C-alpha cells in the first residue's frame, strides 16, 4: 500500500515527528511504500541541519535523513511555511527538499492513505 505522511510539528517540542518516523519505519518493514513525507506548519523545523541535540538523545532530523537515504523516501518541506520560519536552502539538512503545498495535495491524491501527525 502507498502512504502519504503529513508532519505538522517541529522536532523535540512535540512527539508528532517521532511517531511519524516510527510509523514510516514500521510501514516499510511491512513492505508498504512511503510515497512522501510532507512537513508543514512548524513541521518544517524538522529539516534544519543546525540542530545538535544532546548526545544521549535521538537526533530527529538525522533519523529522517537516514530513512530517506535507506529507503528513497521523499522528504518535502513546504516552501511558504519554511520561509516564514527560517527554513531555507541555506540551512536545509541532507535528504530534505523544499517545494510547494501542491506536493501535499498530490500525496493526498496519489496515495492509498494519508496519515497526519500533529499537536
Amino acid at each position: 500500500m502507498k502512504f502519504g505522511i503529513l508532519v505538522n510539528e517541529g522536532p523535540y517540542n512535540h512527539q508528532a515527528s517521532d511517531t511519524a518516523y516510527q510509523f514510516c519505519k514500521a510501514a516499510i518493514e511491512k513492505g508498504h511504500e512511503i510515497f512522501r513525507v510532507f512537513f508543514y506548519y512548524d513541521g518544517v523545523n524538522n529539516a534544519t541541519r543546525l540542530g545538535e541535540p544532546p548526545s544521549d538523545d535521538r537526533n530527529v532530523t538525522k533519523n529522517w535523513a537516514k530513512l530517506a537515504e535507506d529507503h528513497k523516501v521523499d522528504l518535502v518541506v513546504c516552501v511558504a511555511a519554511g520561509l516564514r520560519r527560517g527554513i531555507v536552502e541555506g540551512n536545509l539538512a541532507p535528504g530534505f527538499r523544499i517545494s510547494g503545498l501542491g506536493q501535499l495535495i498530490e500525496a493526498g491524491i496519489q496515495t492509498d492513505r494519508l496519515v497526519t501527525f500533529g499537536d
Partner: protein
Amino acid sequence: MSTLHTVNKSPFERNNLEACLGHAQPGDAILLIEDGVIAALAGGSLEGKMADAAKTFKLFALGPDLAARGLDPARIVAGIKVVDYGGFVDLTAENKAINAWL
C-alpha cells in the same frame, strides 16, 4: 468501509477524544497514541466513559506510548486492545481513511 480515528492528547487536558467520540461512526476504529493513551487508564474518573465507548467502537492503544509513560497494559480499561507501530500501520491499511483528531 470504516474510518481509523487517531487521538494523541489526554482527555483530561483537551477535547480531542470527546470530539472524536462525538463524530466517529459505530464500528469505527479509534487508536490512542502519544498522550492520548492516558485515556486508557483504568480506575480513574474516565473509566466508565471509555468502557461505554468500547461497546460502540473498536478501541486501541499504542503499546510503546503506554510503556513510555509507565502505564501497565494490565491496568487499562477492558476492551482496549494494545498494538505496536506495526499494528498502527495495519489499522491504517484496514480502514478507508484516517481522521487525526488534532
